[in-house]
């Protein structure tokens, strides 16, 4: 009925079905950003309002090395994506693995930092407002890194088993967007927690 033989050029539709993974991921990133922004607002609002110690200045050290690791992982995943795009699976695998390693180093750094805070400096989530907001915000980010690293590892296993091919580059690109997002959020968390309010 409504179908006529008239041709409509594809250029009229800038976003077509093959773009849906990317668009969907952008939507997810928007929703996740909303969650993060509330935690950031809470952190900023409660900064300096703790009734007892320890304070951020007393216990926090800027995690320079692990932050560099996490930021570099955005570059290595980019190299991996480019390699897959041109069909170089070996190079893709190597840089994908490097991304995982960098992500895990970041998580180990967080674990070490938290261990020190809890057992040496006596700061837990229930110590004071700083503890509550610090562990919540940094922990929410760490949780996202864990989810991302798990996803990366699953794709790595598929790569090792030889299931990842050039035609998957678009899908893997969609997943890589999530990893970039996790890194970008760290820019915000790092500046708020370790620079602005310390």
């Amino acid at each position: 009925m409504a179908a006529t033989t008239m041709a409509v050029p594809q250029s009229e539709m800038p976003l077509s079905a093959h773009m849906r993974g990317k668009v969907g991921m952008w939507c997810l990133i928007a929703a996740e950003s909303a969650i993060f922004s509330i935690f950031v607002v809470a952190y900023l609002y409660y900064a300096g309002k703790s009734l007892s110690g320890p304070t951020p200045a007393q216990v926090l050290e800027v995690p320079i090395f692990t932050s560099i690791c996490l930021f570099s992982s955005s570059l290595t995943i980019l190299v991996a994506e480019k390699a897959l795009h041109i069909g170089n699976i070996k190079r893709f695998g190597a840089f994908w693995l490097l991304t995982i390693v960098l992500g895990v180093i970041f998580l180990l750094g967080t674990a070490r930092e938290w261990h020190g805070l809890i057992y040496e400096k006596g700061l837990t989530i229930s110590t004071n407002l700083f503890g509550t907001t610090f562990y919540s915000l940094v922990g929410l980010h760490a949780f996202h890194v864990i989810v991302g690293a798990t996803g990366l590892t699953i794709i790595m296993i598929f790569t090792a088993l030889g299931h990842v091919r050039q035609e998957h580059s678009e899908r893997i690109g969609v997943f890589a967007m999530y990893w970039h997002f996790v890194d970008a959020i760290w820019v915000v968390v790092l500046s708020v927690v370790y620079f602005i309010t310390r």
Partner: protein
Amino acid sequence: MYDAQPMSRPMVVSPERAGSRPLVQVLHDWIVTVDHKKLGVMYFSYGILFLVIGGVEASIMRAQLAVANNHLVSPETFNRLFTMHGTTMIFFAAMPIVFGFANYLMPLMIGARDMAFPRLNAWSFWMSALGGIILYFSFIGGSGLYGAGTAPDVGWFAYAPLTSPAFSVGHSTDYWIIGILVSGFGSIGTALNVLTTILCMRCPGMKLYRMPLFAWMNTVMAVLVLVAIGPLTAAQIMLLIDRYLGGHFFDTQAGGSAVIWMHFFWIFGHPEVYILVLPAFAIVSEVIPVFSRKPIFGYSIMVAATVSIGFISLGVWAHHMFTVGMTSYANAFFVASTAAIAVPTGIKIFNWLGTMWGGKIRYSVAMMFCVGFLCQFLIAGLTGIMLSAAPFDWQLGNSYFVVAHFHYVILGGIVMAVFAGVYYWFPKVTGKMLSETLGKWHFWLFVIGFHLTFDFMHIPGLLGMPRRIYTYDASRGWEIWNLIVSIGVIFQVLGILFWVVNLIITFYKGKKTGNDPWDAWTLEWSTTSPPPDYNFATIPVVRSRRPLWDSKHPEDPDWKYE
């Protein structure tokens, strides 16, 4: 991908076949389905189930309040009733119903075969369903499986410090938190899906400015869900941290703030109103043109108004908090922004009236509900503007005037539009026409009941009756008004009964109807009723906002003028 068969010859006629198969297999089909139409129907039915449950809770409360010094239910039970009523109606009745409409109709209207992510769609539905089950499990699990009647009792916005472990002993509040958290994940999934479907799955020629207004308004709804559910999720996570890990977010004794919970909740809570009302606008914007035999008046202005409502709705939340005490600057800002949102909303009302103006109006039941919507939503908007003035709100905040106002919005606006949508699209979903006679009974009983209840509910509010009290003294002078309010409920319940009977009778014995019983113009009416699994045998190509008008009137198509 593309079938060679023409659209008018469907390959499968599913309902007849489904009837002859064993029940287990039919149920299995529904449970494993990823089809947007089945999921839409499931969302809708699930919403109706909770609408009835929430309605029963409301009826018990009205029975309790009908006379002074009543002891039908205990104060504790009354607290649980209003908490469950509010939570159920917003999260598990209204949201699933509007998602059901979006799910079923959106792909059909934009000429797509399914949503962008069919499996995510199923996941979202089951997450919402799980949320409702968790919330209602609190009745048996709220204080550890030893007794009934332990549902959450903290109110639907659960202000701190009432939710702290000291004041909410047991697990009932946790069921409330987790139920909403889980259904929130489902809502985000659906919103993501709706938005991606609209951006990526439109058929050739369906440019954004040719989309039906239904699609436009649901686009803005989806954006609002993505932005607004996050704060609620974050706040619920913080509350869980407070309750289980000894955090201090909302713990005033450790320097935390009870007011910031209000901010976080209402940053979600007010956009939520627009998340629910925009799909109602979407339904009205489809029904009124078809029954006025005119294209929608001021299409582009309607789109602009919708988008500006979306933006402004993100900056009005603290008008729920005038009585809490804010700075004069905050008060002034939220008074101004709240009053400002009336402008695009008013534009919409004028455009719907403009569509009807000079039209050849057919008063079928769907159109009657739309006219009811217009009148009642106007009044809801007017009391909204009254309450947007901070001094007025200081006087009447948290009184029955406010309760009457937001029920006017939700029942008088959103639910009326949903009824209109059901009468309009039921022939598409089932292939059968709902009875117009029973529909008129439904309409008049419901409208009379609605006005008895909610017109008169303003008065005890003006006389100073606060919301959420479980009984009151006879000397207050509130008794006669509360009695009238409660009598109205009987009419509403009767109206709903007529509706349910109508749905059931029509489903089994209704008379078959054609694919396009209303002589409508959007793409969903171009396929069979009910649509086949794949929606369209050939993907349609559109050249204007009313593709079916073009094909019915090739001598005078719309695209010549747009």
